[in-house]
């Protein structure tokens, strides 16, 4: 009765074989996994307390420079805090924001998309309408304004981005649901007397999961970048919390003389976003093989 009729072992095996054919997915998800581990075990890995300042030892260069020391492998920041430790703790901020935002926006977008796609008619018109309104609003400006009104903090950033970035989920889930709804097994479930909620959650949702995961990866990456942009503009995560965007923002006045101060968090940010997008791209190829 369910669409997924394949037996688990062969499915897992096939997935693994597929994975081997998609090096981008393998590399991307590998890097992301590594970053997640770093984030989880940050207190164990970080050589120093990321918050302790020593303003007499500012902007000490990383170890590979002449003046660098093993004491601070990536040097110190403009307030003499250990840069490697801040970078490691920054992984937490980026990942937490990325995943939390997508949890909120995914929930909102998927719900709206499911309802619109399944019920059609007036519900669909209404959802399409609010998606259009949402798309018409400039996200960064609205996010900046709300943060300015409520004050910047990590949770404000998460909430604001979560409430603003559900559009792609809604659009994709809506169209996918429309296609699935027309399939036979949904009709038979309905005639068998299954409740709407059951059909939506147990029949439709699992079948749009692949698309959802692809959208989610794109959105995680985009949320991380947006947080960095907000923090860069001073209206995101507030100090002394180490966010990569904030680290770049705080170090930018040093860029001509200590370029590594912005290069290090910039590279970390670009690597994480690149890895997530790489993984997402691989997933997309795996799901829609005809495109690759």
């Amino acid at each position: 009765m369910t669409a997924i009729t394949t037996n688990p072992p062969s499915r897992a095996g096939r997935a693994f074989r597929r994975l081997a054919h998609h090096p981008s997915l393998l590399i991307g998800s590998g890097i992301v996994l590594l970053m997640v581990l770093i984030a989880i075990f940050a207190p164990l890995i970080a050589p120093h307390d990321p918050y302790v300042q020593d303003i007499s030892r500012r902007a000490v260069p990383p170890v590979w420079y002449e003046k660098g020391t093993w004491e601070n492998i990536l040097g110190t920041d403009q307030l003499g805090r250990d840069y490697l430790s801040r970078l490691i703790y920054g992984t937490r901020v980026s990942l937490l924001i990325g995943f939390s935002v997508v949890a909120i926006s995914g929930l909102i977008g998927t719900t709206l998309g499911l309802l619109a796609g399944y019920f059609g008619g007036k519900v669909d018109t209404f959802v399409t309408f609010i998606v259009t309104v949402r798309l018409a609003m400039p996200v960064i400006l609205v996010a900046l304004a709300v943060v300015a009104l409520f004050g910047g903090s990590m949770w404000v950033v998460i909430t604001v981005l979560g409430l603003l970035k559900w559009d792609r989920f809604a659009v994709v889930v809506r169209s996918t649901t429309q296609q699935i709804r027309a399939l036979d097994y949904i009709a038979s479930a309905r005639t068998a007397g299954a409740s709407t909620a059951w059909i939506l959650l147990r029949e439709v949702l699992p079948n749009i999961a692949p698309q959802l995961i692809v959208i989610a990866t794109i959105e995680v990456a985009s949320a991380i970048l947006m947080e960095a942009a907000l923090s860069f503009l001073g209206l995101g995560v507030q100090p002394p919390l180490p966010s990569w965007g904030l680290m770049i923002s705080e170090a930018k006045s040093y860029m001509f003389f200590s370029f590594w101060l912005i290069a290090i968090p910039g590279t970390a940010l670009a690597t994480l976003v690149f890895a997530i997008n790489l993984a997402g791209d691989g997933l997309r190829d795996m799901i829609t093989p005809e495109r690759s």
Partner: protein
Amino acid sequence: MFLRPLMLAAALACSTAGLAHAQAADNTLRFAYNQTLESPNPYFTTLRLGVIVGRNAWDTLIARDNDSGEFSPLLATEWIWADDTTLDLTLREGVTFHDGSDFDADDVVATLTYAADPANGIVSQQIASWIASVEKTGPLSVRIKAKAPTPAAMEYLSTQLAIFPAGYFTGPQGATSAPLPVGTGPYKFDSYAPGGELLLSRFEGYFADSPKTGAKIDKVSIRIVPDIQTQLADLMSGGVDLIMGLPRDQADQLSQMPGVQVVSGETMRIVFLQMNTTDTGQEALKDKRVRQAINHAIDRKSISENLVGQGSTVINAICFQDQFGCTQDVTSYDYDPEKAKALLAEAGVSGLTVSLAAYRERHISEAIINYLAEAGITAQLQFMQPAAMRDAMRAHQVDMMQNAWGAYSMFDASATAPVYFGAQPDDNNLDPELKTIFDQAGATMDAEQRKALYAQGFEKIAAEAYAVPMFTLPVQYAGAEGLSFQTYPDEILRFWEMSWQ
């Protein structure tokens, strides 16, 4: 990627060395400033840039000689105090405004009457609120009546009270029908775009007897460039000739570069943290021990030495040493985190979270936040534009405020103490006793008596730990090679003295 700084340093060395600033050729000075001017009218901004533009495009009645510190003639040639509250001035003949109209007594009456009326809402009320009336006693003579004896009157008349042509103002809040601001100063407005470029040009009709005469630069272009790194890039690539307010580290590094001159100037600007003890403030901050703990928690000396650098002195009282009435010999609090923790414990306060508003020197705010964190206090930074911070401060909306007060370059404690502790809008403690002391000090003509009153007030502020006095803030200027410019402790750029070599 990490090799780039080395390559860059070398590249910078080559590229700035042979730098011929295009501006030198067309005798233009390009100046970049990091904060947006809300109004080009000096009565409607507290920003340093507003003071700079004010001094270059306008004249005051009286000037103050840079070297001797004595008052000297400017728009007024003579003045005499008829009694403690009556000042008679004789005005200069033959002065013209930028719009070609002649300067006379009507202009002085109109401008000062406008500024003194609180309904017109000039930003710093204290500079004009002492004026009871201004009357014309002849075509070129006026009489100013003060409400009470005002020892600082000459300070106000020689710094902030710029004279506009009569009829310039058409309503409150600086409303005018003139397309561009009009003054009598050595530079006149060519164009002004809100938030964009402000272009000044030399006023050829400037009166020759002025101490501000002899301007050499033809045009001064002032642009708002908010980010320091963009300002540096502009300076190093020849897009800008002069910047000011560089952080210490950048100034140090820039001074190693050829083709750029870095000048560090001591100023009378003081940094201090205000604490809101009014009804809207945090309950904990109303406890003197908590405020003392905050004083003990911050290592002012280390911040001053490391982050601010040469030219910065730690202060104990909220005033600048050379201001009349200022004394630094008051109760002070050493850096002692243990004592801070003990005081907090004694007050029964734990896990205190306060908001900290700041509008400049963000790196200092962050150092402060980290020091407070060590004592167990979480400070949430609200970094905003000066005007927004001023509003929040005056509405008593934040717990702690990081101020950098230049006192309008006035050498009198009345420009500092009453502003923040004498029940004026910025006061966040509203201590009635301090108001009485500073009101009295502001109306006493006897110098010794005044000094004693200010000393009493500053001691009370320190003993109550109403604020965290920090240090004086030197200003770092960087100019293109070939630009001759002099800096002063009052942080006012005198474009009329600058030239290209």
